[in-house]
């Protein structure tokens, strides 16, 4: 049953206000009238609505944040901001923000407590767990950015905890892993200078990164040919040169077949392959049988189209590329996603486009200084066993330090994992299989969430520690690489809105004291930032005035030495072979298979450009876009809908192996007939998101069972089939 806010408050037996709910309403008209006359000040900051954290200028009028503009000297924003950023500043004034530390006192009941009580109890309980079970039973998870990385790592390492996790296994872990073990990392796509780009699932207009969108616009406005492979006509496919629909989960077959044509027709870069790669012959043998005609049967892409893409990639090399993507197509979606990523890397290698203009470039990241080790000793990285099986031979030997939060929740249910700290991250909602994640969280002896809103994960925590919002805190300087590089920081734009909130660094320093590891935090945030600025000819005070500055970095054009084990491009990976995974990439079907039963559909999801996961559905200006464009619907192909008597706007039952949900449909020609698509930004289950309730619908993660891939350990977010029934 869905928990409403009213019933939540009633059940919890708390008066309104006990959770810090503000009963004072803000008089907008009065404020607006006064604001007309007020002086406007602007302060540099970084957006916090998605992970990109674009540099921004925040404008303050009458003590309130009025608007944001892109920071022109930031590598990611380049002076532009997306809708999420403009909407995201409303978080600051969300009346349902958490305003005081909360302690769980019943299944759905919280009690506001003091910081002293919260931190003392958390420290005592954590101490007990570390003593009884050891640091291998504790983990920390977050969306990794500068301040969080620095403070969490220092605290966890000081306690001997090695399991630090990110969101990556629900995002791009497969892509990262496939590229790491072939190309040595994920390069930047030089769309601005390319002649031909093949986009597989990557939708720059939905999963927006502002600087990447600029490059895409340059490509679209210029002479480049942009071809988009995607089961639905995504925002870029609509304006690109070509849309090539594909059966979801079969991209690997297409990539291998393109490679087959390029090798057979000798369109590849022989010099690169001979001098800078290992295992090419094995790869060539492997793809020899992957004919375009076979791939047509698997992917639904005509063999001639596959040949055309191969020839155009080959003829335009090295100024051609297959985009390394992000979450789309092979980020973390299917059982074969790591192998799809590796095949994409191999195809780029055939084009010889690594560190070539118009190809893929490993841009360096600007240098930052660090604290003096003698004065401010840092804890050693502990060699304790990771709780999530990362690097463990019979668990997830190839998974990276991004960690496996969904696997930890399995271990928690089995009693093999005891405590999790989560910050600025909502794994319960944003990983597949809500009940799996929620049950894991409930099974923990100690769960602590640092947040500003009552997310689904916060709703299940034993303690919720309220942070001040991104406009109310200063943070550590970070460096961003790419064709434009910058160093940047958040400055404090406005005073704290709620007195009892604290910034993450404040909380960690106080918690460290309670845990008797305070000696690792004998510095201020300013001390760290001064150290980070050391390579640059600017004082911290001056830097706080500008917040962000571009740094000239030379692109490593022509550099062929890669960050792999061999230093060359690896068509054959000795490491994969060593841990019992295929040394050379080959065809592997998705877990749902290639051929469906009658009445089954493949399921796809993706972002809308105005929502960031489920975090923004509660922002009124962004929720209103959903309403105005009626966008929170399931896409279904027109002819398929007609066959079933389904009309645009109808409600249907959407059945997956784990749930049945009702959803409204959007009937469209812009989707593969065997596929249905659901935007990812909805389906909040927290009673504190009142606005989001107005646009509530199914979340893709509700449909997909808990699964873990055996290479990167990612969560296979699209590995399900669904059935549809008219209501």
């Amino acid at each position, binding site marked *: 049953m869905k928990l409403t806010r009213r019933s939540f408050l009633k059940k919890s037996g708390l008066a309104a206000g006990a959770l810090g709910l503000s009963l004072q309403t803000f008089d907008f008209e009065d404020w607006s009238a006064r604001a007309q006359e007020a002086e406007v000040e602007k302060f540099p900051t970084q957006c916090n609505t998605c992970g990109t954290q674009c540099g921004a200028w925040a404008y303050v009028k009458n003590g309130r944040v009025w608007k944001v503009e892109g920071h022109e000297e930031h590598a990611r924003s380049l*002076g532009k901001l*997306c*809708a999420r950023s403009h909407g995201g500043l409303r978080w600051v004034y969300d009346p349902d923000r958490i305003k005081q530390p909360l302690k769980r006192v019943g299944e759905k009941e919280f009690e506001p407590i003091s910081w002293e009580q919260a931190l003392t109890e958390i420290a005592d309980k954590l101490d007990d767990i570390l003593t009884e079970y050891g640091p291998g039973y504790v983990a920390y998870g977050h969306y990794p950015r500068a301040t969080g990385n620095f403070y969490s790592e220092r605290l966890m390492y000081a306690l001997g905890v090695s399991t630090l996790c990110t969101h990556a296994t629900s995002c791009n872990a497969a892509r990262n892993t496939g590229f790491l073990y072939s190309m040595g990392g994920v390069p930047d796509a030089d769309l601005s200078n390319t002649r031909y780009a093949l986009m597989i699932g990557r939708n720059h207009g939905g999963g927006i990164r502002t600087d990447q969108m600029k490059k895409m616009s340059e490509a679209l406005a210029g002479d480049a040919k942009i071809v988009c492979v995607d089961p639905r006509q995504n925002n870029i496919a609509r304006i690109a040169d070509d849309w090539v629909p594909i059966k979801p989960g079969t991209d690997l077959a297409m990539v291998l077949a393109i490679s087959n044509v390029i090798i057979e027709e000798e369109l590849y870069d022989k010099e690169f392959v001979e001098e800078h790669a290992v295992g090419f012959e094995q790869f060539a043998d492997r793809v020899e049988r992957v004919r375009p005609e076979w791939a047509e049967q698997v992917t639904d892409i005509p063999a001639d189209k596959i040949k055309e893409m191969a020839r155009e990639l080959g003829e335009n090399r090295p100024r051609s590329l297959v985009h390394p993507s992000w979450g789309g197509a092979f980020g973390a979606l299917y059982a074969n996603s790591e192998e799809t990523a590796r095949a994409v890397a191999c195809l780029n290698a055939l084009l010889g486009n690594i560190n070539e203009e118009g190809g893929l470039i490993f841009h360096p990241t600007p240098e930052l200084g660090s604290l003096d080790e003698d004065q401010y000793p840092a804890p050693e990285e502990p060699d304790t066993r990771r709780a999530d099986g990362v690097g463990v031979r019979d668990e997830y030997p190839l998974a990276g330090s991004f960690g496996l939060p969904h696997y930890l929740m399995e271990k928690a249910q089995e009693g093999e994992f005891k405590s999790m700290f989560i910050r600025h991250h909502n794994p319960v909602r944003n990983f597949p299989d809500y009940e799996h994640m929620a049950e894991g969280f409930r099974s923990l002896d100690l769960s602590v969430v640092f947040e500003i809103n009552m997310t689904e994960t916060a709703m299940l925590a034993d303690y919720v520690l309220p942070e001040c919002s991104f406009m109310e805190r200063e943070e550590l300087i970070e460096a961003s690489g790419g064709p434009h590089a910058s160093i940047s920081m958040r400055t404090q734009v406005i005073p704290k809105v709620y007195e009892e909130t604290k910034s993450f660094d404040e909380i960690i320093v106080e918690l460290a004291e309670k845990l008797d590891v305070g000696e690792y935090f004998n510095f201020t945030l300013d001390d760290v930032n001064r150290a980070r600025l050391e390579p640059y000819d600017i004082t911290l005070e001056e830097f706080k005035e500008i917040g962000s500055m571009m740094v000239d970095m030379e692109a490593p054009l022509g550099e062929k030495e890669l960050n792999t084990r061999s230093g060359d491009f690896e068509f054959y990976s000795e490491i994969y072979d060593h841990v019992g995974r295929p040394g050379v990439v080959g065809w592997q079907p998705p877990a749902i298979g290639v051929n469906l039963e009658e009445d089954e559909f493949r399921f796809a999801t993706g972002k809308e*450009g105005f929502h960031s996961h489920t975090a923004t559905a509660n922002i009124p*200006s962004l929720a209103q876009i959903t309403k105005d464009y009626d966008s929170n619907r399931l896409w279904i192909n*027109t002819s398929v809908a007609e066959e079933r008597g389904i009309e645009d706007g109808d409600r249907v039952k959407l059945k997956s192996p784990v749930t049945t949900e009702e959803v409204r449909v959007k009937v*469209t020609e812009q989707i593969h007939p065997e596929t249905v698509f659901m935007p990812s930004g909805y389906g909040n289950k927290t009673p504190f998101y009142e606005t989001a309730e107005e646009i509530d619908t199914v979340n893709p993660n509700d449909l997909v069972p808990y699964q873990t891939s055996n290479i990167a350990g990612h969560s296979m977010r699209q590995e399900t089939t669904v059935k549809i029934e008219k209501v």
Partner: protein
Amino acid sequence: MRENKEDNQSRRNFLKKTAAAGLTALTAGTALSGDKLLAESNDTAKKAILMDNSLCVECQACRVACQNEHEIDVEYSFIKFLSREKGEYPDVEYRLRRDSCMHCPDAPCISACPVDALYEGEGQFTTIDAEECIACGRCLEVCPFEVPEIGEDRMYKCDACQHLLAEDKEPACVNTCISYALQFGDFEDMLEAGRERVDQLKESYPEANLYASYDFGLLLILTDTPSELNLV
């Protein structure tokens, strides 16, 4: 997705009238009824926003930046999009355009406003004095593009960010556009840039055109005929 509106009679009449008046560039602004601002508007050079709809990804950054800039309720949006899909899977094409105030020359809304709340402002953009507006809806009745949104005590529409133009800045939508589909500048320069882009687009979009026959302050680069995008 918003449904395309039906062509309406008032638009046809308006366009016929303007065409008959033989309007050319830089002759707009003669029919102002907001006399208190007449002198000011005559001094200001004609500017334009140029929108390249072939690059737009409908991310809605412009819409929300605009709402913040103008501090309006989220239920009103000065910038909307009209779209349609053409053809059948897999040969389907998507067409869209920005749907917002076109800043007509000799704007009928200005003449129709009974309380002189509309006038030609900085850059010769049709501007509203929200405090004077009585939300009577006369502007909507005469608008060829059905743009004005009538609220409880005022009408809502784009004014090309008059307060920013006064500071020599560009409108908020142009400033934030992540797909670089928007430009702002002198009318003649935008007209030229628009024509050049259309020439370039003809190769991929044979019907590409610049919707600029009437010296609008919003110039639209379209990838399809105006009628396909509910314009005449």
